[in-house]
């Protein structure tokens, strides 16, 4: 049993839960290291998110198409093969080309410190390395999903 709740002005009184955060997990390069992806997929699901996994070796085009078709809030990219600067950029370029700004993009993998600002500049945030606590990643996705939702609801 949950007691009544005070609401801020304009907040919905609906008893149904908000639509869960929808995340697409993708490794958009030639990289089969998927242990971390499977862990994240389960952890995100346990955190109440709606999780999609792009499968093995999707191209940047595949990733952007799926993200748009499924209308996700966040695309979470991971690479452990050192190609993040080239390949993550391709995903961002495609999104820009197609005028998509209501989907947030986050990154992770074996990303050296000196590459992080370069990715941030492209609009890819997070860029977490191995050993990052799941809570940090989940909080970051939640934050970036809220941004995306705001943009989706702007009309």
């Amino acid at each position, binding site marked *: 049993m949950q007691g009544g709740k005070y609401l801020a002005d304009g907040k919905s009184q609906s008893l149904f839960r908000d639509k869960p955060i929808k995340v697409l997990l993708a490794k958009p390069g030639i990289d089969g290291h998927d242990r971390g992806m499977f862990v994240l997929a389960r952890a995100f699901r346990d955190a109440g998110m709606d999780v999609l996994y792009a499968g*093995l070796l999707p191209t940047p085009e595949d990733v952007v198409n799926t993200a748009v078709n499924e209308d996700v809030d966040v695309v979470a990219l991971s690479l452990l*093969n050192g190609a993040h600067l080239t390949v993550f950029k391709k995903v961002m370029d495609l999104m820009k080309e197609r005028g998509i700004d209501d989907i947030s993009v986050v990154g992770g993998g074996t990303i050296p410190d000196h590459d992080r600002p370069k990715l941030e500049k492209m609009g890819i945030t997070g860029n977490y390395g*191995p050993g990052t606590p799941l809570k940090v990643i989940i909080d970051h996705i939640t934050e970036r999903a809220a941004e995306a939702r705001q943009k989706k609801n702007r009309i």
Partner: protein
Amino acid sequence: MQSRDYYSRKLNELKSRHSGNPDRERWRRETLAPWNQKTGYGGKEYRNSSEIPIHEIYTPGDLPPDYDKKELGLPGEYPFTRGIYPNMYRGKLWTMRMFSGFGTPEDTNRRLKYLISHGESGLSIAFDMPTLYGYDCDNPRADGEIGRCGVNISSLKDMETLFRGIDLSKISTSMTINAPAAVLTAMYVAIAKKQKVPLDSISGTVQADILKEYIAQKEWMYPPEAHIRIIRDMMTYCSVNLPKWNYISISGYHIREAGSSAAQELAFTLADGFYYIDLGMKAGLPVEKFAPRLSFFFNSSIDFFEEIAKMRAARRIWATVLKEKYDVNDPRSLLMRFHTQTSGYTLTWQQPINNIIRTTIEAMAGVLGGTQSLHTNSYDEAWALPSEEAVKIALRTQQIIAEESGIPATIDPLGGSYYVEWLTNQMEEKAYEYFDRIEKMGGMLEAIKKGYIQKEIAATSYRRQMRIESGEEVMVGANKYQDSSEKPIGILKISKKAQDAQIARLKKVKITRDKAKVDAILGRLEDAMRDPEENLMPHYLEAVEAYCTLEEISNAGRKVFGGWKEPVIV
């Protein structure tokens, strides 16, 4: 003699030999409990990665009375628990084989020569991701990936450069390549022919263990049946032409890195091994011809005794099943030879120098487990491919164990430890439980195609991650003893120039070769692929020698065999 229900009968036999230990029960009651009460110790449960609960103490009561004679034996004697050779490291140290490859073939050629000059005794080549998946360096999908995770090989020209100045008759080479393993074997043969080294004297290994690709590493090009047919062709071809070539390295390493427990690594790797035994037999090869050419590759992780027990159990299971289930009597066919690599996933990104210590412990476990060759990871490998300085320390780690520690002087020095023997038995039992379950599912290939093996591993991996998150499992520097004053380490950077150089070389190859000949050969290769009775190896050799590229050769198969989508497990 392929006996039905062998695994479930064997499991029952093992279980009947392992019972409780009354000595420990008495000691717990009379000595331990009062002590704990007096000191206020509430007790703590220890479990290893295989979910085996670890007792406080082990005694002779943990082993059956005839254990020494029946399960343990002596080195070089069945069932080989104590080692496959009578004199083990007294006769010959393990081969120090450092997995290396990055950038262009020139870069890697320099690294190989550097390692040889520092006392490395065997080569081990790492390829980049496009090569592992059979894509050339000029494929748009490969942009940004050339030379990043290993050396790039797009045609025989690259392979010639890679081995320039290295005499193939003097050194053995291990190549970590799976989906295109037959093509890389053909390239190695072509280089040997150019160097005028007789083919029956070249020695080395290709990984070519495609089953574990579908389980863990996920590097395939075609459906499983097509790759299995190519492996069969390699087995048949090599048993005649390359008698010293190890054409499959049955690998648990990747299964473990994908998050399995030690017991799962043991069980799934051996189940793969038995599948290849069945494959060779079905191809009509005499077992004493091909079984001695199968080698294994294990992970050595951080739980010291669990790893040692795993390796000892692996040797014993392999010999026992081949003898009892497959009726193999040729002594050489019963020997499990294996390579060991220290664990990648235990290395931390944080405080990376600590990784030297982890690698040392893991390398010692490999040696005490009786490995035939060893790769030690470099401390910077959570970050990138190793720098020259880091790889030298990793090699020195092995040299210190070999030449200073005194460990190699005694064969299986932990043999007879009540704990290690008990744990070896426990690991063995866990493996037979899986063999039985897999057999009932219709065999290993079926279990993989259904996603059963992958799901088992993912579940273990998730459980471990939860334990790390909660702090129950400690990773020093990562989830305990963090240090915010850490300074970044220098790491190896791969320049994008490697990609440009590779593309330029490939362009030149394509201009200078005989295009009509290339087309004709690729056409014949496709025809051969359509005929399951045809052996593909001579066709691969013809193709690489005419400078058909890796991707052109791989695409012939993509056309004929199609691709494969993995079962959904998330």
